[in-house]
């Protein structure tokens, strides 16, 4: 399983049954592969609630895609709506969970995922709306950048996507809960250890698990 798929698999248990969920482009999209078919209601901001699995190549409908512009299907009970209605649903809190990617996460749990300093800023998409609107935001990201730099940092050097902190940060190595007092390490993946997490995380965080891995709140 690729690291992306492993991260997605680690996010899946955080999606309650029956939740309305928006999966961002990239790793977040893969979360659907780790959920039972009728576990959640997937919303895509281009105007569909009830996203189903990728169709067989001969069953692709060019009018039916998710926000990553890949072909999808629609589940029974699905509905189509305009972009304005879709973001109305998002901003008013009817999307219960948004799973988003991130370039950086700061010590307060705020994320940066839309702009890189020094490069022209020509894309923002729906991430800012999801961050102010979704009731719970989960970040699904590799623990470090491609160059090995920490992504979970004291202060973001990339522009923030919103002032609102996310709720949970899930990487291939660890899971952090965001609290009013900052980040809490609540889980370490089986194939990683605390030492690795410490070496690859520059933000301060409270370790809220004991030696056996159980969370102590």
């Amino acid at each position, binding site marked *: 399983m690729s690291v992306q798929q492993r991260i997605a698999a680690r996010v899946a248990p955080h999606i309650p*049954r*029956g939740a*309305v969920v928006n999966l961002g482009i990239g790793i977040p999209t893969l979360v659907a592969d780790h959920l039972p*078919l*009728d*576990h*959640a*209601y997937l*919303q895509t901001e281009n105007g569909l*609630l*009830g996203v189903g699995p990728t169709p067989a190549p001969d069953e692709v409908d060019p009018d039916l895609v998710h926000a990553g512009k890949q072909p999808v299907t*629609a*589940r*029974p*009970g*699905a*509905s*189509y*709506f305009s972009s*304005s*209605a879709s*973001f*109305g*649903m*998002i*901003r*008013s*809190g*009817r*999307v*219960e969970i948004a799973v988003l990617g991130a370039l950086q996460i700061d010590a307060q749990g705020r994320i940066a995922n839309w702009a890189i300093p020094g490069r022209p800023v020509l894309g923002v998409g729906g991430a800012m709306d999801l961050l*102010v*609107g979704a009731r719970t935001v989960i970040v699904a990201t590799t623990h470090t950048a491609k160059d090995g730099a920490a992504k979970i940092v004291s202060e973001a050097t990339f522009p923030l996507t919103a002032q609102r902190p996310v709720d949970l940060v899930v990487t291939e190595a660890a899971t952090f809960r965001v609290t009013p007092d900052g980040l809490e390490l609540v889980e370490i993946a089986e194939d990683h250890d605390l030492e690795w997490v410490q070496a690859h995380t520059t933000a301060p965080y409270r370790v809220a698990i004991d030696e056996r891995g159980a969370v102590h709140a």
Partner: protein
Amino acid sequence: MTLASPPVPLPSVAAALEAVRPGATLMVGGFGLVGAPLTLIEGLLEHPGARDLTIISNNLGEPGRGLGRLLLEGRVRKAIGSFFTSNPDVVAAYQEGRLEVELLPQGTLAEAIRAGGAGIGGFYTRTAWGTALAGGREERIIRGEPHLFYESLRADVALVRARAADELGNLVYSKTARNFNPDMATAADVVIAEVDEVVPVGALDPEEIVTPHPYVTTVVLSGKAAAR
């Protein structure tokens, strides 16, 4: 087929209305009695918690009918809407100081509800500018034309009338009984939909669903449906 759990709850009218607490703000759909959730409104009369209410609705029913009954029983503290003159009981209650009234142009009322349901804080409209209804509202020139500022509206509970729900809570409406219902269905923390029938998932055309299920908290059958 299997359903993503949970399907929308289908409680009794009384159980659904437990969400209405004293002092609550309610949105109630309908244009006069057309498209008004009459079974739910009757249920409010039986519900002791339904008192000291603020009602956001285009009208306040007719004398002794619909919301008009709720008014006569002294359950309504304040009404926000666009046209109350058709019910003389509203005029009387207002004149006797028993009812507070906030009057908005009908389009501004509809827009304020739609904005509340779309996560929009407020908006500017040209309607009512330069009239006595503008009161002391903030003005702003946009593209050379004067506009008035209005905050969006939200409610604790919305009572809406739809033709049918599917088992997930997706709603479709009937003709001009649609009116304020889909707007209100987006703009409250708890949304109770009164319907004539509940159909299986997949029975509604995905292109035709007006209110997607995440907006709908519970569905109750209309008296009309229950009597069948």
